């Protein structure tokens, strides 16, 4: 199975894209923050450590200041990176798994299978995702697992449509006919033969789905439906609302963190797309 994605020409194309480069650097920083948070700020980031509402830059021990309860914002931001990235990545994986499976099956088998899947996609397109998400999480309870699965569950339809479109064009190709001729099973044709060829655009959309998932997570925790035991950027924004008259930075800082992460994921996604479709690069 050939993987054109990792070729050096591909990497060169990706790195020539300045936006994607910046995005990649930011992403590495955020991942680093997520990875090293327990080392830099050991212990519970949600514990009270200092006076309330210390402004950023005022006390060197709290470079980003403290919130209305006197918790260290820098610690919460670093630990929040874990929640945001973790939920984002796993939710996108869930969405990709559901979307690719349904899209592939729909296009490969066609007929009523296709009909059922497409009606399902339409259904999820009609229900406003955020409203559905709120409902699911509030009914099943705000745990990390539920939140991750729920975000994946409302984000798969774009991936299903894309995979289906890719499969529809690939399934008529000669190499698939050849596979049928030598008696290969359906599952093997789908997974081993068609899927690798359909994957590049799906990977791009998956990376963009991570960005969407992070936004959903932050909105959920902003509304107070996040996991209460986990430091989260969205929740910090929500809690900072109470003190916007005196200390607006409490809301501002985690919002910038969300924005930078989402922005860099979008840039990398665009960069990936350009690198995978060199024909479009000059536009």
């Amino acid at each position, binding site marked *: 199975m050939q993987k054109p994605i990792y070729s050096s020409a591909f990497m060169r194309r990706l790195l020539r894209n300045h936006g994607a480069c910046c995005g990649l650097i930011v992403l590495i920083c955020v991942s680093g923050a997520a990875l090293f948070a327990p080392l830099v700020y050991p212990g519970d980031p949600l514990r009270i450590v200092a006076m309330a509402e210390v402004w950023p830059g005022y006390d060197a021990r709290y470079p980003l200041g403290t919130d209305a309860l006197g918790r260290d914002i820098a610690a919460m931001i670093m630990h929040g990176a874990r929640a945001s990235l973790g939920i984002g990545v796993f939710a996108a994986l869930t969405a990709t798994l559901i979307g690719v499976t349904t899209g592939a099956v729909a296009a490969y088998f066609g007929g009523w299978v296709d009909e059922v899947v497409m009606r399902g996609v339409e259904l999820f*397109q009609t229900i406003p995702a955020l409203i559905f998400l709120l409902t699911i999480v*509030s009914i099943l309870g705000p745990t990390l697992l539920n939140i991750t699965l729920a975000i994946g569950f409302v984000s798969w339809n774009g991936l299903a449509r894309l995979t289906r479109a890719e499969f529809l064009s690939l399934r008529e190709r000669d190499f698939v006919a050849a596979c049928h001729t030598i008696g290969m099973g359906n599952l093997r044709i789908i997974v081993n033969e068609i899927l690798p060829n359909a994957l590049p655009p799906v990977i791009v959309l998956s990376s963009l789905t991570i960005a969407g998932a992070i936004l959903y997570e932050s909105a959920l925790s902003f509304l107070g439906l996040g996991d209460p035991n986990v430091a989260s950027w969205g929740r910090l924004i929500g809690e900072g609302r109470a003190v916007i008259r005196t200390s*607006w930075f409490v809301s501002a800082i985690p919002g910038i963190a969300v924005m930078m992460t989402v922005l860099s994921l979008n840039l990398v996604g665009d960069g990936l797309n350009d690198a995978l479709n060199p024909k479009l690069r000059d536009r």
Partner: protein
Amino acid sequence: MSRPQLSKYKEMEHLRGPELGSQTVKRILLRRLLQLGPLLVAVIVLNFLLIQAAPGTFLDIMTAEQQVTDQETVERLRATYGMDQPAYIQLMKYIWAVVQLDLGYSYRHNAPVFDVIMAHLPATLLLMLAAISVSVVIGVLAGVIAALKVNTFWDGAVSFLAVFFYSAPSFWLGIMLTVLFSVKLGWLPVGGMQSVLLEGGGFVRALDILKHLVLPALALGLFYAATYARVTRASMLEVSRLEFVRTARAKGLGQRRIIFAHILRNALLPVVTLLGLQLGTVLGGSVVIEAVYSWPGIGSLLFDSVMSRNFPVVIGVMVLSAFLVAIINISVDLIYVKLDPRIRFN
């Protein structure tokens, strides 16, 4: 017209227009309306399954909240809400009731769910309409400027702002706008829809609501403005390369006429499609924005109901919002037919 490079962005993956083929408007309308029924049933079933999967029935919460301890009363309530029957019968009954526009009864509001939702709907529709207008006007304008001055400072500025607003969470943007315009400058109110003590006629009140509307509409609309700016720019650039634009130039039309009557008109098609597909997310986004600005709409109602596990209202909001989105999508299809004569005359 092929639009290869439009697949460049995430949102553009939806841009394959509605599959209208050679059908006439009436048949499209009929088919779409017929699809509406199964769609709503599916929404109901989905929610019903979810609620069945939830730990604890809403009767438990209701009785706990209203401090009903008398077993007999609980049983009577169970019978009143039909919860003594098997789940599938409850489901059938609910679907039949929805057909008759009966979405159940909200014990918290002491009113039928349908009435409660209808009372909150105008505020949300107003907010949505304002946000969409903001996003289309700002987005298309910015996209046109960027496309006309492609690869200049203006193009770069529009791209930068688009990327900024595309990535910022709307609720955060809302809070930051509040900090700037309400707390620091004191120009606009912090939240709500109307001032409490306000004397004056209709005009004064309308102006008051408008003042309350500015920030939420901006916070909600700027994200979509960013996507429309990107789509309009890409689409303008592409259409301007097409043959008929060259023809228009060749026959000596003025620059302004070419841009607005020829290029922009055709470049707006993907914007319309995107608009239709995003209306559902505008409705979802308004939930969060309504929470930020305590805007008394569907979003606040849903949030309140979700928190108090008032499930009849939650399902009601889901069903009605799905209905709303489906109706809007059908209208977008019809607008599409109006805008693109090729669909009509095929």
